[in-house]
């Protein structure tokens, strides 16, 4: 199986108190922020690796995983880290974060998919910075491929996948045929959430996170192929279709008050907080 995994770098969520918005409010000042791969995209990478191996012998790769990102040269660090974790190849589409919106990303990915012809495209259900929850769905639409979003479990079947999706009322199960687009949720990295056709039924991974990169793979990562493409070569003259009008920091939290009894609490919840 050939899988394309889309990864976006985001500012480390632990940096939240370093985020600055200049007085003009026209952008977010990213100087001094530390970057990492969007956690949901890392889960997608882990999912792709699990789908291309027999869980009990993960060193033997049984498929091809291509990691893709759109961003400036520094994002190659993130791609190298994906390569060390187990991806076979990487592609960087050279651009800057502020030159992108969801539609352009989806359009660029569409072209890459047409070139690469993967059986499956995996990515996180959303990024933890913009939280748009858009690119996966848009890509499936552009490709006119079946899609399953918010995957919490994936079992490989002949010619497709059985995907358990987390929805408000519980789990909905979809059967998608290849080629397909799947976006993943947090629980996809639980020990028995993903099973490739080679992994024995009942097998559990001994961890429930994204795997660690082994040192030999870290040493080989710099030798694995990393191609760089130009955004314009993929999307032509297409430009941003959405614009950020203004950024504002959320209002600072106000000091709390002490209530004298339950009655006052209930009353405040009803009249002031309008929570009940």
């Amino acid at each position, binding site marked *: 199986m050939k899988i394309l995994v889309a990864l976006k770098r985001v500012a480390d969520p*632990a940096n939240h108190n370093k985020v600055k918005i200049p007085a003009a409010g026209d952008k977010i000042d990213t*100087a*001094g922020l530390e970057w990492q791969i969007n956690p949901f995209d890392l889960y997608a990478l882990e999912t792709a690796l699990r789908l291309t191996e027999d869980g009990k012998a993960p060193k033997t790769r049984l498929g091809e995983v291509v990691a893709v990102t759109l961003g400036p040269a520094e994002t190659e*660090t993130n791609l*190298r*880290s994906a390569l*060390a974790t187990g991806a076979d190849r990487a592609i960087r589409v050279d651009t800057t974060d502020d030159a992108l919106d969801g539609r352009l990303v989806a359009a660029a990915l569409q072209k890459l998919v047409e070139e690469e012809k993967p059986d499956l495209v995996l990515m996180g259900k959303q990024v933890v910075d913009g939280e748009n929850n858009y690119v996966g769905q848009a890509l499936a639409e552009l490709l006119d491929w079946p899609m399953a979003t918010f995957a919490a479990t994936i079992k490989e079947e002949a010619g497709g996948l059985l995907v358990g999706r987390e929805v408000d009322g519980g789990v909905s199960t979809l059967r998608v045929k290849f080629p397909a687009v799947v976006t993943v949720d947090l629980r996809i990295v639980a020990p028995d959430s993903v099973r490739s056709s080679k992994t024995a039924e009942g097998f559990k991974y*001994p*961890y429930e*996170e994204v795997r*660690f*990169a*082994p*040192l*030999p793979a*870290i*040493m080989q*990562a*710099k030798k694995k192929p990393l191609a760089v493409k130009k955004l314009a070569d993929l999307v032509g003259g297409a430009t941003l279709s959405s614009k950020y009008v203004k950024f504002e920091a959320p209002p600072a939290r106000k000091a709390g008050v002490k209530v004298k009894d339950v009655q006052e609490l209930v009353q405040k919840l009803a009249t002031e907080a309008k929570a009940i």
Partner: protein
Amino acid sequence: MAPTVIDARNLEFLLYEQFGVESLTEHAPFTDHSRETFDLALATAHKLGREVLWPPFREMDQEPPVLIDGRVRVHPSIRALLRECGQGGWINADVPVAHGGLQIPRTVMTAFRAILAAANYSTSVFPALTAGAAHLLASFGAEELGALYLPKMYAGEWQGTMALTEPQAGSSLSDIRTRATPTTEGHYLIHGQKIFISAARHDQAENGVNLLLARIDGAPAGVKGISLFVVPDRRPTDSGLVDNDVTCTSVYHKVGYRGAPITQLSLGDAGDCRGWLVGQPHSGLRYMFQMMNEARIEVGLGATAIASAAYHAALDYARHRPQGRPITSKDPAQAQVPIIEHADVKRMLLFQRAVVEGSLSLVLQCTHYSDLAQTLQGDARERCELLLDLLTPAAKSYPAEQAILAVSQGLQCLGGYGYCADFALEQYYRDVRIHTIHEGTTGIQALDLLGRKVVRDGGKAMFLFLDEVGTSISEARGVAGLGAHAAQLQAALDRLTAVTQHLTGLALEGKIDLFLADATLYLEVFGTVAVAWQWLRQAMTAERGLERDPSEADARFYRSKLSAFRFFFAYELPKVEGPAARLLDSDGLTLKTEEELFA
């Protein structure tokens, strides 16, 4: 979420800017590596720290290991770490390729271990112990012997231990009594008792491999009669693992560092404990010292790492705890200020940084000598080896002793909460206490430094050290703003030289007891000067950084580095004066204090 326990930027500063480990990759045997490998290695360590080591940190202290049916029950996260380290290649990462390793520079691996140790020192020692034991076996054991054990140890499946100490033989290893009786089948039968053996017989590894010191029947007395053996808990045979008559008889209750058990072992109760000789007979202590020198540096690192975690916890508290008002404006209508605004609290925080970052630099200086030696030949190589050898007792003991004081100040920053289990400081305070004891007490390190390393070969290593420090001082003289500090370090170095001459003079007069009576004070002076040297080097590196038109964040980092540097020279370096004066006196006060005078 895991808190900050170590400053990642500072590790980068030391590795890349100060020691230039990248340039090691230009030379054999490190050419397979690159900055990218190192960065990814450190990123892995940070992730392991956050995800595997930190979460059970408090729990492991509250529920320490217990002995159940002959096995020591330890926290299950230890299996997870051993597995990750095994599968990741981290147990044999710095082992030469010829011994099945990946030859990452020791300096990088030391930074890797620092990150794990800061997240949870107890857990971090399990793979480190296996690495030490495996390294010993790989260096001195026969190939067939290694082949039986090393793959399982490198894979993190079998736990390595070091079994030296016995009830009558702690500091004095020459008094080891455990017996090894030769058989005609190639193995020896082992009989004896070991105490305080870390990580033995625990339940999160499939087997234990004890590297054990014993005396072959009829061996000469003293250090020249001690041999090294591999004594597995269960021995590999054609029909699988067979019990090897190694019994854990108890687990000690400790002050801190409780996640890692120390055990009492009884060997050969049923007459069937088999050991296999490693290397030549009667050479065991010599082999063991190779490992022990590495372990001593790791002890210094462990102390530093705990003090680093304690510093970050104290810093966080100090920023958020409002208490009191500026000394110059006591208006009660005014809000209280965060305690970090009080000069005395700043002093406590700066002291912690001075110890942590100074110690870390000294430890990495040692491992860097070790790496450089690998890339060099002849005299240049010998120079690095001699410096490493000389600095080892200081790189163990300065961090071990000072980290106790640093963590105590961290605890103090929290006031009453520092003393309560609501915050981690009280645990760090207990955990950090071990380092002056294991791998040779401070007293023993001091005898090793003054009685052996300083005087050996006519003081050759000591002259090299004076030369190294002198070179840094000359460089610093040329850096704007550092001239006075260079002069201050030169004065301290002169003082150390005078003390050394005075003491070696006593040795030449044959007054050996007087020469060594205050060796621990000598170690204190030596260690403080060595760390001051490291601080001067860091200051020069920071000044160079500032000249390179750094980003705002980097500029802030360099300025903060320089402020901790100035603190060390203003508050810590002058402390050599007391012990130096004492050492120059040599009236033999302690020697003359008869036992009955201890009322």
